[in-house]
């Protein structure tokens, strides 16, 4: 059970402490800065924040004294020669003469650190970062230096080794709409799940490509999209082109994976060898951004469904959380303590978390809710926070 919650918000980092049964926010940290992700390293207690500063560029910030002081880090950057295949967003007035557009390349520059993940207990100081455009970075020294995972960057699903020359295979990593706000249309890595039994095994979620796995600490990577379907491509079972919104793993049952995807909720019982769609239209479990796996029981997960994908807000003005306890066969919905009229909240992909019996989420409308009974009833922690990008129990 955790008595602390970290919020990454549009206007800074908020730390909530549980005191006498209530959650109280401390004065805002990184005030005025957009924070894309905030989390605590469970191994050494360091607090990590991904700052998304519009003027001065994305930076990391860390605190080794529980949030009293922060150190901003500038070392996470793409190496010279890191290129990617440029994506083209067609404009409405564009005419095509039928000829294929020549492949063009762009030098990678960091647009956003989207997610942070911590290595296993056998890897002190190892931290992973997922970025726009489409990078997985790893630090092995507690964040002082960072290296791009070049094998994943050079994967055949994205054109091969572009450091060496032109693409040798077709790029199948599409841009994510989440990048458009940065003036680019590039893929992004938003999910990193490290297997607690074996730190060399990691699953990474990419928008828009799918899930990709390494079992050897990043030396080789393989797509893990069998069983995935989509509803926006001519071939709904294409190997690539999927849009996982968030992918997570049950730490006590690491072969059980959960995925809230643009095209529904999916789960895997065999370590992502095969996915199964578990959307249930009768309880409106289908579209949404975040998903949280129970930390003990692999069959239990929570989602916050949204009306999608055309509206992207609460369904019929009422906010609710859905929970399954049987691996997605059935879902229960819970509304107690949540607004049931004129609610337009949407919950971003990193803004729902569960730890033991506690579940917490925050919305784009600046509302934060905590449940202490596994999602069955909710209490509002505050209504006037900035838009919430991430929620993580410390």
């Amino acid at each position, binding site marked *: 059970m955790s008595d602390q919650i970290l919020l990454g918000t549009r206007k800074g980092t908020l730390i909530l402490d549980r005191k006498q049964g209530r959650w109280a926010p401390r004065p805002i940290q990184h005030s005025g800065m957009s924070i894309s992700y905030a989390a605590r390293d469970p191994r050494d207690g360091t607090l990590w924040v991904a700052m998304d500063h519009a003027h*001065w560029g994305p930076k990391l910030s860390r605190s080794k004294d529980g949030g009293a002081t922060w150190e*901003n880090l500038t070392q996470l*950057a*793409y190496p010279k020669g890191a290129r990617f295949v440029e994506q083209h967003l067609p404009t409405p007035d564009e005419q095509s003469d039928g000829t294929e557009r020549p492949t063009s390349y762009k*030098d990678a520059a960091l647009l956003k650190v989207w997610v942070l993940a911590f290595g296993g207990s056998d890897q002190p100081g190892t931290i992973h970062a997922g970025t726009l455009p489409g990078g997985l970075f790893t630090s092995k020294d507690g964040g002082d230096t960072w290296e791009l995972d070049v094998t994943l960057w050079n994967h055949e699903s994205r054109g091969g080794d572009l450091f060496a020359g032109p693409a040798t295979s077709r790029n199948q990593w599409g841009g994510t709409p989440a990048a458009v706000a940065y003036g680019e249309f590039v893929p992004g890595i938003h999910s990193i799940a490290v297997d607690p039994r074996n730190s060399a095994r990691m699953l990474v979620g990419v928008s828009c490509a799918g899930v990709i796995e390494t079992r050897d600490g990043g030396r080789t990577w393989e797509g893990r999209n069998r069983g995935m379907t989509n509803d926006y491509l001519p071939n709904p079972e294409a190997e690539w082109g999927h849009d996982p919104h968030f992918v997570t793993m049950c730490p006590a049952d690491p072969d059980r994976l959960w995925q809230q995807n643009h095209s529904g909720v999916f789960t895997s019982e065999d370590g992502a060898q095969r996915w199964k769609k578990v959307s249930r239209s009768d309880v409106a479990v289908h579209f949404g951004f975040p998903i949280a796996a129970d930390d003990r029981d692999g069959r239990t997960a929570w989602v916050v469904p949204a009306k999608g994908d055309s509206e992207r807000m609460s369904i019929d003005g009422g906010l609710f959380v859905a929970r399954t306890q049987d691996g997605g066969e059935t879902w229960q919905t819970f509304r107690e303590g949540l607004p049931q009229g004129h609610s337009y909240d949407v919950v971003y992909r990193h803004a729902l978390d569960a730890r033991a019996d506690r579940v917490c989420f925050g919305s784009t409308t600046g509302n934060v809710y905590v449940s202490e009974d596994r999602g069955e009833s909710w209490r509002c922690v505050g209504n006037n926070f900035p838009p919430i990008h991430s929620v993580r129990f410390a």
Partner: protein
Amino acid sequence: MPFVRFTPHLQRFFPTLAEGEVPGATVRELVEELDRRHPGLASYVVDETGRLRRHVNVFVGDEPIRDRQRLGDALSPEDRVFILQALSGG
């Protein structure tokens, strides 16, 4: 030697940053020298490919620099350089 002024917003990250003379035959050289004096400062002004950040402006006198890709604009010793954040945000 060119004289450089900054938006006070940069002093939030580099509290000892102060206006003054900084050597450099081009804007890029000047930014490199600033980064030696204040490690990490260049990463606030340019990205890792050397491009000026989208929402940062550098003026030489009253004119914005022309080469946002490489900051190759030449400087003369009497130039005054301003490093500012662009009008953007929300």
